[in-house]
């Protein structure tokens, strides 16, 4: 038993070590790439996000007339169709068909010549090569879809991931500071009709935290005075289905991509980001996190169903 325990412990440690090593490796790679890409992508997103948000507002002005799940379904189906059209014209349909044929032929060869081990193993290799080819042909349209789809999903996330704070409902608000700035003692939150500060600011871990309570319904602007500069954050209070921006990001492209509702904080600001922990939308269909799954299922299902109509192979 001791040997088994030792082996299990050793095994567990080994797995942890490998995971940690991989995380470090990916972290390093990611850090390097992030530094490389940020000067390019951050300004680009600063331009794209307001446009996308305006389009999102117009779209949801129409969709919000429907029940939320119907609206999400409609958007998912439309996304599926849009992706089909992109796939139709941006992919190498002949190549995809050939790769799929190669996979099918090799799978059938395994079935038909199962007594010939040589054929069986060679066919399995053929299947794997076919899969690799297919991935290659699928790559181009996926890359073309990547940016618009991520921008669109970020817009949908602002509606389906979080909901506005209800009047009287409590939550936390966090202001994170740039690493070069100490937690500023002289920060001041100007009073707003939208909220009532219950506790705070409480410093800790490079950020200040407030416990706030929703007050008057509406879309309010919070103003923070920090080292003589004014930094703003939007707060939404109310019962209705509204777009909410949980985070006002700094000049970090990944954060900008995920939180497109507000412009990035100005360069040189001591504040790195401001976050309001809005309550998650509670629904098994269109609520927090589930909406992505629902979107995936419905968009894929509609794409599969409409595939023959659009004569798309994938």
């Amino acid at each position, binding site marked *: 038993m001791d040997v088994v325990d030792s082996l299990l412990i050793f095994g567990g440690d080994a797995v942890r070590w490998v995971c940690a090593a991989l995380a470090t490796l*990916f972290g390093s*790679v990611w850090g390097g*790439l992030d530094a490389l*890409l940020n000067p390019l992508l951050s300004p680009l997103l600063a331009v794209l996000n307001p446009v996308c948000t305006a389009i999102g507002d117009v779209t949801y002005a129409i969709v919000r007339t429907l029940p939320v799940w119907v609206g999400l379904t409609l958007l998912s189906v439309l*996304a599926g169709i849009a*992706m089909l059209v*992109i*796939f139709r014209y941006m992919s*190498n349909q*002949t*190549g*995809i068909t*050939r790769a799929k*044929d*190669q*996979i*099918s*032929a090799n*799978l*059938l*060869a*395994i*079935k*038909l*010549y199962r*007594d*010939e*081990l040589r054929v069986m*193993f060679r066919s*399995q290799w053929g*299947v*794997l090569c*076919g*899969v690799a080819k*297919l*991935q*290659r042909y*699928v*790559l*181009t*349209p*996926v*890359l073309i*879809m*990547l940016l618009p*789809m*991520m921008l*669109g*999903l970020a817009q949908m996330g602002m509606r389906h991931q979080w909901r506005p704070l209800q009047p009287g409902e409590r939550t936390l608000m966090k202001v994170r500071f740039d690493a070069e700035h100490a937690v500023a003692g002289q920060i001041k939150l100007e009073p707003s009709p939208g909220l009532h500060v219950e506790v705070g600011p409480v410093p800790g871990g490079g950020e200040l935290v407030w416990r706030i309570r929703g007050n008057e319904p509406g879309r309010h602007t919070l103003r923070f005075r920090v080292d003589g500069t004014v930094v703003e954050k939007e707060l939404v209070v109310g019962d209705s289905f509204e777009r909410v921006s949980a985070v006002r990001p700094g000049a970090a492209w*990944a954060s900008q*991509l*995920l939180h497109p509702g507000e412009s990035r904080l100005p360069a040189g600001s001591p504040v790195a980001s401001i976050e309001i922990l809005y309550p998650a939308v509670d629904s098994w269909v269109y609520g927090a996190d589930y909406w*992505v799954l629902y*979107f*995936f299922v419905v*968009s*894929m299902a509609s*794409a599969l169903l409409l595939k023959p109509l659009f*004569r798309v192979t*994938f």
Partner: protein
Amino acid sequence: MRWFEGPRSRRFASRAGRTRRRGPSFALLTAIVIVLGLAEPAAAYIGPGAGFAVGTTLAAFFVAVLSSTVSLFLWPIRWLVRSIRGRRAHAKARVKRVVILGLDGMEPTLADRFMAEGKLPHFSRLANEGTYVRLGTTAPPLSPVAWSSFLTGCNPGKHRIFDFLTCDRRQYIPQLSSVSIRGSARTLKVGKYRIPIGKPDVRLLRKGKPFWNVLGEHGIFSNIIRVPITFPPEPFHGVLLSAMCVPDLRGSQGTFSFYTTRGEGEAEYIGGEQLRFERNGKALRSHLIGPPNSLVQDAPPIHCPFELTVTGRGVATLRVCGETVQLEQGVYTPWVQVAFKAAPGIKVKGICEFLLLRTEPEVELYVTPIQIDPTKPALPISHSAAFSTYLAKAHGLYATLGLAEDTWALNARILDDEAFLHQCNEADAEREAMFFDALDKVRRGLCVCVFDGTDRIQHMFWRYIDPDHPARDGQGGRECRDAIEKHYIQMDDLVRRTMEACDGEDDVLMVISDHGFCSFRRGIDLNVWLEQNGYLTLKPDGRGKKYLAGVDWSKTQAFALGLAGIFLNVRGREAEGIVDPKDADALREEICAKLATLRDDESDEPAINRAFNAHSIYRGPYKGDGPDIIIGYHRGYRVSWEAAVGEPTDQLFHDNDKAWSGDHCIDPKLIPGVLFSNRKIKAKNPRLLDLASTVLELFGVKVPGHMDSRPMAVADVDGHFPGGPESPGSAERADDTDAGECVAGAERVGGGQG
């Protein structure tokens, strides 16, 4: 000419170009994907795009990994089972693999000539290092009969195939001899629809068991490609793709369509039809004619509309089934998949090729017979059912029709020689891909593949090598005049590649043909001869009517139908029979004797060499199911086109001025096939039907007693014959052979083990 460029090769070229161009961008895009993919977990899912990427490949990847894993785990068990089975199956085998390459209709005299001229070096090599002999064929020497004897090892009296067509004796109409296709017997009526209960009844009428079924019973695997009279396919241990008698989607043996803007409207040809385009602005509209819709009352044919727009001189755009196909005058399209809607949600799928014949002064379009789509076959065309799909996925779409090369369209002058030649070459190219794939996959067992190009090209181009042929003023260029010779040279190259693929010591290669070939200059209207000799009487207005509709049965003792021979109108057997069964044999002998004296006054030559009493030359339970008299025509003669379809004319001899200028339906003794092998083979007067037992014996499998086939002695790779210089079979046969160089099937089958 552009026929030989082949759309496929150009397609591959363009694909290759595209792949090269994508190289650098591929690396860049991959880098971007890695960057974005690593962004954050929340961004990992990017919507349906990623779904497509994952969905399309994950399933295949999963199946591949799963099957690999299962295979690896099962490998020891499989190895054990396979070893035990294999050892038992091949325990007595003298060889690992037998490869039979069938070249339908290869003529020995032409082979001799081309070998002597040094044009067939690989055939010569086989002849010098192995075997080259004449191979006795069957009576009649027709492909369905000969190949049926080859695969069953039996005479026609046992496999029941005597001709392409046989006679429905209740109605005196021709019907296909090898297969019967009927819709489901029971249907459920729902509104205008008739929903069939059960599958259509597709029945193979050929009797007897193919020798690969016998091999399969002993655990030996076979890969059989396009051997005639294998439709519908029978289950056995191996894979098989059916050939001759596989119908097109309409159920016929091949009906082409010819579309034109010419004024004369619709017309009918033998094996095809002419349809008119309807003008709609710049576009020309018409429809493909599909299968009868058995889901509705009266089963009208299903149509598939298409639109043709002439976009310039010699170019046009075709829109069919949502696809757009660019047409260029004189260039075949690749196979196009078309669908015929039988009912909501129910489609019958087919494939066809389009050929824009001209755009000026009139627009003319040729469409091949619409064939069964091998990826979704409307009727079973292979065993396993997945085999036809496998071949299509592995090598692309291919012709599935039994007689894939459209001889009727060339006869009707819809196609010219070059266009027809393209079809032959394309069909052979498709088959080559399948054949070499089989050689690659099957290292132990039997591989058989039959190529039809030799037969079709000789049928249609013999007029170029026969200076006395009535149709000798052909239209083709040099390419067509040398088509037969060139095709033999192509087959020589095929033999070279086959020899390279069969270089193992335990591989036996046999190259065979089912019969030879000769000129078909004059046709004999047998019904006229019967009428002149008082055996057949026509109704007052009966002359010129097809399918024996003009025959007065109350005064007719015998009639001709099909290519092989003459039927007696026997009381109790035929619906309106008048010949007493007791007198039938005497009548058969009487007609045979008279026919043997028939001469062609114009050429002052005998027209018929011999006529055989079928009841004397066949043995077996079905000997009475075929014609009563089999005609052994002299060289240059055959049954006339009109007599073949039971249409009595007013003259006995007809010049054959059709492109179909070569034939083989003559006295079998005059038209043997060939047998080449990479092994020494000793047999006196070998016959096509002896191949079955020879192969069985090579694999150490006992030859079933019902077979008429007797094994030939095949030497080991070192040239020694096991058990002595002559096999027992050939010794036994020594007393019943003819003195001639080859033994025609007629006598031999007569000597079969009844």
